[in-house]
């Protein structure tokens, strides 16, 4: 473990380091975790090369590497009941905020500006705000410009799949390594309740027929991507009462067709977003409903649990948004010098630190080897990134959730919260919502916390822990768990089920 005084400067220099754990998977359940920058046992080296620095394809990498989206693709070819096209796509973007549309040339300039400012930005994605493949000319022109100017940046795109089979060859020709398809159903009977219509062969097609065509195209597209050696992630929106049980079947269907990673996301459906689901009162899942579905699908398939459902022009680490620093107006004024060697050197330091972090966790786990217990706990963590407990309780805009047991620790999700502390004063109204968001956790790890919220957390049965400030998250989680088991054995505490928690709806940052 690094001493605190050694780690602080490093943190200032960058928000990265990286152990690696595969791709949003746990060290349990048959998907071996990989503790170093070499490929994990269950992953081919060429696949590992593609995911190890991709924040969306690797849970571990998302603590250290950043991504950006450019909004060059506003048109869409289908309508979804969870999306309100009058504003933005609710499940891809912060609802109610209209993205700034970019031309491919503006997008290219923006990518270079961000890559020069944030050297850990390794991935450029096109994710709308419509469907990238409903705007093929703009999408591929953007890829072409970026590939020429910044060949070290990974390119990816996210699509509903309707037009995908027509474009797989072009995608391949631009060296796009990663494609995400949003697949919410494989049964048109279910699909008709999610998709009111698709635009297909110059006609608007509705009902079961629309869903039937869409699912056929999605499955064909996925098979073609797999055959072309392109990694595919599948996103599914969990809509209680409509497709929640059905998503297990979706999981099987996409796994059998070679999808690499499955990302089940909660429906966002606040009435103010103006979506069909928002307006008709369709609810989203609770935190434990979402986790139970993700757990049931985890087995041989990697499950993504770190998705932040980000907007189509997001910039930065997942969970932070720096897009306001890079508006068109600002980037046009920037003098951008793209220095690929500098970026490489920066990322090398990350790799060294990455291994140190894994070693620290593994050393801690060794001491648990002899232990076996049925007890598993969740802990919430306030972090700014780099895999460390380095955020104040009151400054946290989200908490990362880790599950710990004698089998090890794993990242199982995150909870968005409104800032508890604004301008140095705790806002009394927000503390209950923060507690509801992490109510299923036994403890919350923070770099610092005030006396008042500390008492209220304790009263709610959540242990506020600041003794691991600035240390590695997973190493600390395992250490805390050992103590927790010890306290159960000594009779000091009784382990009880913590119940459920809320998933925050609405805007990421309170206005």
């Amino acid at each position, binding site marked *: 473990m690094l001493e605190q005084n050694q780690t602080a400067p490093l943190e200032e220099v960058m928000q990265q380091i990286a152990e690696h754990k595969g791709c949003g998977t746990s060290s349990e359940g048959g998907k071996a975790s990989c503790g170093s920058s070499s490929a994990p046992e269950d992953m081919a080296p060429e696949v590992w090369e593609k995911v190890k620095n991709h924040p969306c394809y690797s849970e571990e990498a998302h603590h250290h590497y950043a991504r950006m989206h450019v909004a060059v693709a*506003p048109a869409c070819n289908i309508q979804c009941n969870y999306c309100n096209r009058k504003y933005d796509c609710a499940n891809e973007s912060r609802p109610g905020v209209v993205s700034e549309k970019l031309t491919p040339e503006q997008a290219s300039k923006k990518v270079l500006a961000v890559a020069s400012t944030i050297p850990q930005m390794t991935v450029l994605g096109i994710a709308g705000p419509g469907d990238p493949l409903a705007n093929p000319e703009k999408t591929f022109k953007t890829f072409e410009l970026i590939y020429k100017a910044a060949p070290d940046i990974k390119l990816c795109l996210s699509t509903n799949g309707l037009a995908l089979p027509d474009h797989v060859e072009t995608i391949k020709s631009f060296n796009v390594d990663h494609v995400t398809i949003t697949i919410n159903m494989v049964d048109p009977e279910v699909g008709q309740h999610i998709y009111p219509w698709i635009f297909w062969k110059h*006609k*608007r097609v509705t009902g079961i027929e629309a869903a039937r065509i869409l699912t056929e195209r999605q499955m064909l597209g996925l098979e073609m991507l797999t055959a072309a050696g392109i990694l595919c992630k599948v996103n599914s929106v969990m809509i209680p009462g409509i497709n929640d049980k059905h998503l297990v079947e979706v999981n099987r269907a996409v796994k059998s067709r070679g999808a690499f990673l499955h990302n089940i996301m909660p429906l966002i459906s606040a009435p103010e977003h103006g979506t069909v689901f928002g307006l008709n009162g369709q609810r989203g899942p609770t935190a434990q409903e979402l986790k139970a579905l993700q757990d049931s699908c985890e087995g041989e398939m990697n499950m993504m649990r770190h998705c932040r459902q980000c907007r189509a022009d997001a910039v930065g680490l997942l969970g932070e948004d720096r897009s306001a620093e890079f508006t068109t107006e600002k980037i046009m004024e920037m003098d951008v010098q793209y220095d690929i060697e500098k970026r490489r050197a920066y990322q090398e330091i990350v790799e060294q630190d990455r291994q140190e972090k894994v070693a620290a966790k593994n050393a801690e786990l060794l001491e648990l080897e002899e232990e076996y217990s049925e007890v598993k706990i969740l802990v919430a963590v306030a972090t700014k990134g780099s895999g460390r407990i380095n955020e104040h309780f009151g400054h946290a805009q989200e908490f990362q959730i880790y599950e710990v047991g004698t089998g090890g620790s794993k990242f199982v999700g995150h909870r968005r919260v409104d800032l508890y502390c604004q301008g140095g004063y705790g806002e009394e109204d927000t503390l209950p919502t923060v507690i509801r968001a992490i109510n299923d956790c036994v403890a919350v790890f923070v770099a610092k916390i005030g006396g008042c919220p500390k008492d209220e957390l304790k009263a709610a049965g959540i242990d506020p822990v600041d003794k691991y400030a600035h240390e590695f998250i997973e190493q600390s989680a395992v250490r805390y768990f050992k103590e927790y088991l010890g306290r159960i054995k000594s009779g000091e505490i009784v382990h009880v089920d913590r119940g459920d928690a809320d998933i925050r709806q609405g805007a990421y940052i309170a206005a």
Partner: protein
Amino acid sequence: MAYKIISSQCTACSACEPECPNVAIYEKDGTFVINPKKCTECIGYFDDAQCVAVCPVDNTCVIDTSYPRYQAA
């Protein structure tokens, strides 16, 4: 007649622009507009008006009654 786009409802998503067989749709002041002199209501090309079929906001591409009905040549 020709189609027109109600600009207050247009999201400027651009989906209609490439679908128009007459190249009658263009961007102007942040939304899209239809040149009524070029619009044929898609008669002679498709069964449905393409801008209406692809538009994500219903009742945004509508018939402009101030123009006479298009007559196929």
